[in-house]
């Protein structure tokens, strides 16, 4: 598969608010950050998939950004078994490691946002 084909899948997923990922058909490794080769076994037999968006906070930090006030940032462990970096929208209730979150993508800016699953 060409990188462009993967990017088209990713861009289309982001436009729909979905989180794309790749699954290796040789070794069953799942990963988010795209490549034309499985980073575990080198296979080019990759399946383009869409995540259900459900996951858990793996790590989270908060800091004060110059223009945007307090920013939450970190890593989500997706239920399918891969991890990605994203921002968190906490809506007042502080997220912790292992809190359930739903991740959505924002097409134009390619930002990933996770919010508490209950919301």
């Amino acid at each position: 598969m060409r990188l462009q084909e993967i990017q088209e899948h990713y861009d289309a997923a982001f436009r729909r608010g979905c989180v794309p990922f790749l699954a290796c058909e040789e070794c069953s490794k799942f990963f988010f950050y795209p490549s034309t080769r499985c980073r575990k076994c080198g296979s080019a037999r990759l399946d383009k998939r869409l995540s259900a968006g459900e996951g858990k906070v793996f790590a989270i930090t908060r800091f004060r950004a110059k223009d945007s006030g307090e920013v939450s940032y970190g890593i989500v462990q997706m239920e399918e078994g891969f991890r990605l970096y994203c921002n968190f929208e906490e809506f007042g209730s502080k997220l912790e490691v292992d809190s359930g979150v739903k991740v959505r993508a924002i097409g134009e800016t390619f930002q990933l946002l996770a919010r508490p699953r209950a919301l």
Partner: protein
Amino acid sequence: MISGFSGKIAKKYEGSAFELMADVAMDALNMAGLGLRDVDGLSTTFLPGVFDGKTHLHFQASQVAQYLGIRPKYLDLLDFGGASALAMIPRAINAVASGLAENVLCILGGKGSEVRSKGVTVDGYDRVDKGVQLTPFDRYYRGGFDFNPVTDYALAAQRHAKVFGTRDEQRAMIAVSQRKNSVTNPYALYPEELTVERVLSSPVIAEPLHLLEAVYPVDGFHAFVVSKRNRTLNDLRVEAYGEAHWPEMPCELDDLVVTPALESSRRAGFDPRRADCLQLYDSFTITVLLQIEDVGLAKKGQGGKFVESTDTTRRGELPINTGGGSLNTGQPAYMSGGVLLEEAVRQLNGLAGDHQLSAVKSVFLNGIGGWGRNHSVTLVLGV
């Protein structure tokens, strides 16, 4: 082996990076009793922005050679960030041993102030120059706020706290001990003593890290001359060496609580307790804590307990960062490796002044570099 060295650090150096670089290089050569004409090997490194705000120097190593008027037989450019300094030394020694060169000038540094003034770090330089790329997939990675060394190490510190119960106070003790080591170091920026309370009452820069747990980016260069014939300094030897490069995104590692120092130190195969002191990369307190575990001073997860129960000041049983480290000198051009290496060479030559330890026979160094803790170099120097 190392026949001369020099280091100069300033919060803000008013001249060009090339000027400061040349001054430091000349000082190191003077110590070695050499002139520019004797230099036939050159090794250097580069990060975006640190040479007078330029994103990129086209053929950087050539430009350094051109400025100094050197025509090297051996020319190298290392790209391991903070770990580059330590990796230069064995490469230069190999070059000399194999007859490629007789005197290799190793230069590292630049101006952190140029990058600082743009409101970014070198690892966020893509925010000010769209020609900079951090990963092959920035489009899907750089959409949001804001991966930088501070948030990256904050996440590592948070995982360490979550997985092992490490407390903020334990990390703060590292800053306190290093400050004790720096009070007699003329290169230190901060004269006052530090307490755990003061560290923890400094502003939170990214939870759970505090301002006094992080290096301050400054301007500065270090130069080391590796020579076939050494007339001036103690003849040092590399007692052990290992490097490891983990290119993964940190989130794709099993966890954030290990660094490639685990692997580089294993390759070196030298028990760090046998060394008279250690110089561990100290971009943040958590960086030191992670290496304490990864190089084998403490079991994984026990680093917090280790710093509570071990006196790591220069008068203690296991001195770490004997000059106070870059947490106290500032971090020249976003790379602490030169600070670690200069301190090790000083200790091994009895040139550490008021913070000299007695009878230093070997120093264990570990450098970490890359924006996701990608590189680790373990180097044991002995006399």
